[in-house]
Each structure stands twice: as C-alpha cells, then as structure tokens.
C-alpha cells in the first residue's frame, strides 16, 4: 500500500492558505503533509474532516479527500465515515473552540468507543476565525473581545480530559517544533484506536506573537526522559496537569479492542454462521 515515492507536496492541494502570516497552523499543515508522505499513504484513501474555524480550513489545503463541515462536528462525521469505511485513514482536525467547546460532547464518546480515528486540535486558546473571543483553553484573566474585563472562567485542561475519557493515545506537540510535530502525527496515525493530539499552535493575531515565547520557554519533552512508560496512566496524568511546564510527547498510549474489532465479532454473532437474505428477514414478520 505504501507508496515509496510519496513527497509531502503530493498531499497538498495547492490552494494558498488564508491564514495570517506567522499563524501556527502553517506548521500543522506542513507536518500533516510530511507525516502522510512518511507513511506513504495513498492519498485517495485518506479523508481529513474538520469543523469551522481558522484551523478547520486545513483540509482544503490538502489534496486528499476532505470535508470542511460545520462547527464542532468533525468527530461525529469522522466517526460515521470510519465506521462505514474501515479501510480508510480518517483524521479529524479543528480548533479548541470547535473540539472542546461546541463539539465537546463527542470526545468522551468517541474515546470510550475507541473508534480507530485520529484527532488533531490546533489549540490556540482563542476563537481565531470569529476574531478573538475567549475559548475553553484561554487562561483566566485574559482580556478578549468578549471578556472586556478579563476572563473569569477556569480553562479546561485538554490532556487531562482525554485521559479521563480513556482515549487510547494522548499526545501533545507544538507548531514550534516541526520535527516533533511530524513524529507525533506519524505515531498517532500508526496507533490502532482513537488517538488524540493537542497542538499548541499560536494565534499571532489575537493572542500575540508572544505566544511563541511562552510556549518555547515552558515546553518539556516528557517522553524523552529515559525510561518513560507511556502505558502508565498515573504518570500521564501527572504530566497532563502539572502547572510547571507544557508537556510535549506521547503522554499515554495503550492498545485495547477498537469498536471495529468488537463490531466484527458482533456481526459474526448476529449472522450465527449463515448468510442472511432479505427474504429470511422478511419471514421474521410472519414469525
């Protein structure tokens, strides 16, 4: 299946991104294309689904199948696609507003079902496309166009949530380190089951260029520590909630049956060894 000669450019549509100069999402786009190339994915077998937001423009810049859908619904669309087309590689992407705010209820359910799809959040801690409103990851106290006097809400901690949802792969990276980002995307695509990657991707327009410095100065590559065991939930938890640094790397990865695995068994049970026809089924109405 792998195509040896794949180059990242093959995965781009050629449409010029309308992101602001300096936006972190450029790096994510590049990393996705490079990761796809590294994995040699046939591009007609890849579908990238997004909601609405600056970040959700990403599928339009890829040359794979893409679906730039509605705000917050990348995950259920991706789930429906993957469940009915298990042969595809399905990636959902979006922003922190898209996936944690309006779309927040899809995460626990897609995680517990362990559907074999991937999700990248471009977390800029702001609503970019709608011009700078507070998001669920915006720090408390921050002034935005809807928090004139500073936000009074504690933000969510995405990694902690995903761990408690039992996502079978939880990682974090940033737009500042392209190579790390690529490696994380490659790893998540190789994982079997639901994989989640939070990317700290600065919005230079509404959170300022300083975000680059903030992220750079506070990053820590946790899985580069010798002996790091990504199957240790307690450690993962610790790295997810520590206020000291921004944990980068695979915090947690543990395989378990996917929804698709279990469904295959269920189908076997339903068929009970024989192929069923419509006529058979109709007979059920005659008892």
């Amino acid at each position, binding site marked *: 299946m792998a195509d040896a000669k794949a180059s990242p450019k093959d995965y781009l549509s050629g449409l010029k991104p309308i992101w602001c100069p300096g936006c972190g999402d450029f790096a994510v786009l590049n990393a996705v294309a490079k990761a796809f190339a590294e994995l040699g994915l046939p591009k007609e*077998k890849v579908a990238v689904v997004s909601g609405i937001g600056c970040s959700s423009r990403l599928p339009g810049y890829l040359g794979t199948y893409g679906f730039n859908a509605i705000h917050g619904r990348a995950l259920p669309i991706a*789930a429906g696609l993957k469940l009915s087309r298990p042969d595809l590689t399905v990636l959902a992407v979006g922003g922190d507003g898209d996936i944690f705010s309006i779309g927040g209820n899809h995460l626990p359910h897609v995680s517990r079902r362990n559907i074999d799809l991937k999700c990248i959040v471009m977390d800029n801690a702001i609503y970019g496309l709608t011009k700078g409103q507070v998001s669920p990851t915006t720090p408390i106290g921050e002034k935005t166009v809807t928090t004139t006097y500073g936000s009074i809400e504690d933000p969510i901690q995405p990694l902690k949530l995903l761990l408690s949802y039992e996502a079978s792969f939880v990682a974090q990276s940033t737009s500042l380190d392209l190579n790390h980002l690529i490696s994380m995307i490659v790893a998540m695509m190789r994982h079997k089951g639901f994989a989640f990657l939070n990317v700290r991707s600065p919005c230079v327009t509404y959170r300022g260029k300083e975000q680059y410095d903030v992220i750079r100065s506070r990053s820590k590559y946790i899985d580069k520590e010798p002996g790091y065991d990504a199957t240790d939930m307690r450690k993962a938890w610790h790295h997810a909630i520590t206020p000291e640094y921004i944990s980068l790397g695979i915090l947690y990865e543990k395989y378990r049956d996917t929804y698709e695995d279990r469904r295959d068994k269920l189908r076997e049970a339903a068929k009970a060894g024989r192929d069923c026809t419509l006529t058979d089924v109709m007979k059920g109405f005659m*008892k």
Partner: protein
Amino acid sequence: MDCNDIIIGMAGSGGDGVVSAGDILTASAAAEGIYAIMLKSFGPQIRGGESSCRIRLSTKPVLSQGDVIDVLVVFNWPDFARFGAELEVRDGAYVLVEEKDKTEDIPLPNAAKCKITKIPFEKLAVEDAGNPKAKNIVTLGVLGAMFGLPVEGIKREIEKKFKKKGPEVVAANHKAVDVGMEYVKAHGGPAELHFAHSSGKPLMALTGNEATAFGALAAGCRFLASYPITPATEIMEWLSREMPKFGGTVLQAEDEISAINAVNGASFGGVKAMTSTSGPGMSLMMEAIGLAAMAELPVVIVDVQRGGPSTGIPTKTEQADLMQAVYGMHGDAPHAVLAPADVEDCFEVAWRAFDIAERYQMPVIILSDQLVGQRKETVAPFNIDTVKVAVRATPDLSEGVKFKRYEDTPTGISPMTWPGMKGGEYLASGIEHTEDGSPSSMHETHEKMIEKRSRKLDALSGEFKFIRRYGADKPHVGILAWGSSKGAVREAVEKLGANGVSAAALIPELMHPLQKDEIRKFVASCKNLLVIEMSHSGQFEHYLGANGLLPEKTLHYRVSGGRAFSAREIESAVRAAAEGVEYKAKAQEPRRMMGKDEE
C-alpha cells in the same frame, strides 16, 4: 349476525396483558390471511400503568383503525377511563366485564344500549386455568368462542410464542384458551355477532417502523446512527438486530446531532446511511441536514412525528412537523420530503427515499408519524424485486479530464466520488463553494450554485410521481390530506360514495417538492375543497398556500394531535363541506368520565 369487519377493544392495567393478547390476536389473524390493524395505547407509567389496544379484523384490507368498537373487554374501569375517546363503543356493542362489576356503575355514556356481559375472567384464570397471569389468554378463548375468532390460529400463535419456555408453558396457555371457550359454551354460547371468515394466504404482521427499517435495509442502507426517542426507537431497535447480519453498522449516538453527522460522514464515504428520530430530535438535526443539502450528500432522515411542540405528547400522533421538515433549515437548502400513509407505504417510501437521496445527492426526510409508525398491520409479503437499489452518478476520472465535484449541469446533479476513488479527491463543504469545491463568498458564485442546487428539485418533481387519488372524478367535495390521515379519509370517501355523496381525495406522498400540476388538476376538478390535517395551526393548508395551490375559498378540518382521525368524523366534515361550511369536532363526551387529567 355475520360480519366480516369487527373491532375489538381491551383495556386494563399493565399486568393484565391486554396488549400482549392483542398481539397474539393480530398475529393469528395474519397467519390466517385476515386483515388487521392494531393500535396500542399506554398510560405514562412505564410499568403497572393502564394499557389498551384496539384491533380491527376484516376479510378485506382495512384502511383505518375503524370508528366505534363492536366488542369491548374491560378489566378495570378507571384504566379504561384514561383512554377516553380512543375506545368509544357503538350502541349495541358487546361489553365484557368482570363478574364483580356493577352494571349501573359502568361509565359508558351509552351503557344502556350495550350488551353487558359479565365474565369471571379473574376467577377463570386463577381457578380453572391455574394461573392469574393467564387472564388475557382466557379472554382470547372467550372472544374466540363468542364471536367466532380464529381460535386454532390463536393456539398456533401461542405455541410459537411460548415454545422457548417449554411444552408445559405452551400446554398451560392452550388450556387457558380452552377454559375461556368452555366457559362460553357453558354460559349462553356464541353471541349473535359472528366474525365470518375463511383462511387465506398468510400475511405479515408488522408496524410501520419495522416496515421503514426493512425498506431501508432493502434499499441497501448499511449505516444507521440514531438516538432513542419515542415513537421512533423501534426503527433503531429492529435494525440493531438485523443490520449486522448484512455487514452494516448501527450506532446509538450520544445525541441526535452526533447521529445525523455520523450519517453525513458515512454518506461522504459512499455508504447508504440513515437516521431515525422524532420532533425534538429533528429540531436538533436541522443544522446538519442543511450541511447535507449544501455539501450535496445523500442522507435519509426519518421523523416519526408525535404531539408537539417541545416534548409535547411523546406517545401520540400529530402532523405538525410538516413545516419544519420543509422549511426548518436556515438558508435555501434543497431537499425532499416523503410521507408514508400506512404500514405498507413505509416500506416503499423508505426505499424510494434512498433512491431519491442517492440519485439527487440531497437529504430526504421521511415524515412518518406515531399512527403509522407504531400501529401493527397485516400486509401481504413485500415484493422485494420492486426495490430499486440506487447507484450514485460517478464522474469520468480518466487522466486529463478535470473533475469538478460541484459541476453545474442541466439537472443540477453533479457526478460525485467518494474516498477510495483515485483522482476523485475533493473537498466537501458547508461553506459556499465554486464548482470545483473551493470556498467562495462572491454573490455571483452563490447565485449560480444555489441555482444549480435548487434545479435538482425541478428535476425531481418532473420525474418522480408519488401521489394517490381516490373517489369520484368530479367530486362535490375534494379532500387534500396527507400521511396517516389517508386511511380514515379514503374510508370516508368510499363510504360517502356508496351513499351517494360525491367525494374524492388526493394524497401526495412526495410532500416536497410538491407535484403542483397534479394538485392543480385535482383542485380544478372539485366543487368544494376541504383540507384535512392533524395540525391545529393548519400547516398543510399553509404549505399548499405557500405553493399557490389553494383557491380563494378553501374549507378545512383540523384538530391537534393526540388521537387518530376516524372515518366517521371525516364523513361529517365532508358532508358539512358539501354545504360549504366548516365542521368543528364536538368536545368528546368520554372526557367527562375521567377523574384527574394529569399524567
């Protein structure tokens, strides 16, 4: 007196098993080739509350649940009272009551005109059949012996039903039937009223929801994502059992928004997909249905209507989601709406919905309702060979040909691809886009693409005919009605015709886009026009008006939901319309019987 059309009603507490008795009776009718419609009704309690059923049996196809009851069995009068107008009995009806009930206490307005028969149901069950829970089975024996119902069929159904529990259970229940029959023989014997029938070709017994689910399966639907909701859940329940046998998937989503979007995703993947819900769920799905319209994805949505607005009356029917189904999305979002009118229709409408969705690449809403969705009917086995399994138009992907996903074509239909097709990669989107799928905010693009998408409706209404006409050619009164009203309307039209009143009815099943020419022709042929619907605000009438289809003077007969139309009231409405006046339903009498109205 022989009859070939009989209506039996039963009411009792949850434990009395009246619905289960009704099910057995209906199934045995089906097996004998007798036509039947069975309606069940429950109180708000999940268990132990009151329940009732009414079964109409006939040697000819039955059109509606019928008007007044011929034979009523009541185990408990307070329970009966909760069903009010649903169980009205005719003068001269047989009313079977527990021995202990005092005749003078029977709260029927026309009790004096009924044949009250006291039967020790409880005692027969406990003492003779040896099982207090077998009261309903004893009752079947009583009914069989008194009115000539197919007792052997009933016994066969009992056998099928209890087989798994072992031969003793079957024998005990057979005995209960015999106990009932013997009691009748010993006490006055068969009644004068006798259901005359002979066995015919076996029929199926199923609900509209089951028929819808089966129709979808037959059309090739292989993905269902739904969220439970009364009165639509049986569609998901049935498919969660049957779909996996065909390699399909049923997902109980976390909510309706997730359900419809998963369906959008599956459809994007080239797989036929559906969701099923009722009013509150529909409201939540509006945004994503609009997405399907914009991204031009074939999806099917079933709305089994119930009483509204809001939570409304979840267990009872209404026809007041029509405007939402047609106009509920923001923006101009082309899609189709189909309405089944009976159980058999549900099957055809379901597969046709997929046929339209897949060929026209748009959402298709099946607007069913509680009355068709949850009633059980006996119908002849479906002819599976009639089902068209639609295939989407795909483009030429050969080298050098530029594929434009949203190409502007004469019909508005653009050949489409789905993941896996090399060279067919494209961006589906809910944002306005050019022919090649790139986002655009130009008015000119918008005008062109909105025009393209809407053209599909013209193509559809030109090609697809799904409308039914009953009755006289140039009627004195012409009825426009839709959906589950059809049964009572058709029955009324036929009765009126037999009684020399010239009436006709037109029932569109393709509700959107409407087949305007057919409706105009019909309207022109009628002296008086009467619009009948179960919506207090008159949604259907407004919708016809919106399409410019109503003459200056249109009469209407509308009620809110919460009950089924009877042919009798339609007859009255038509007779009034023949005089050019509007008929108002009388306040229902049985209401006075009830103690507290709250549930």
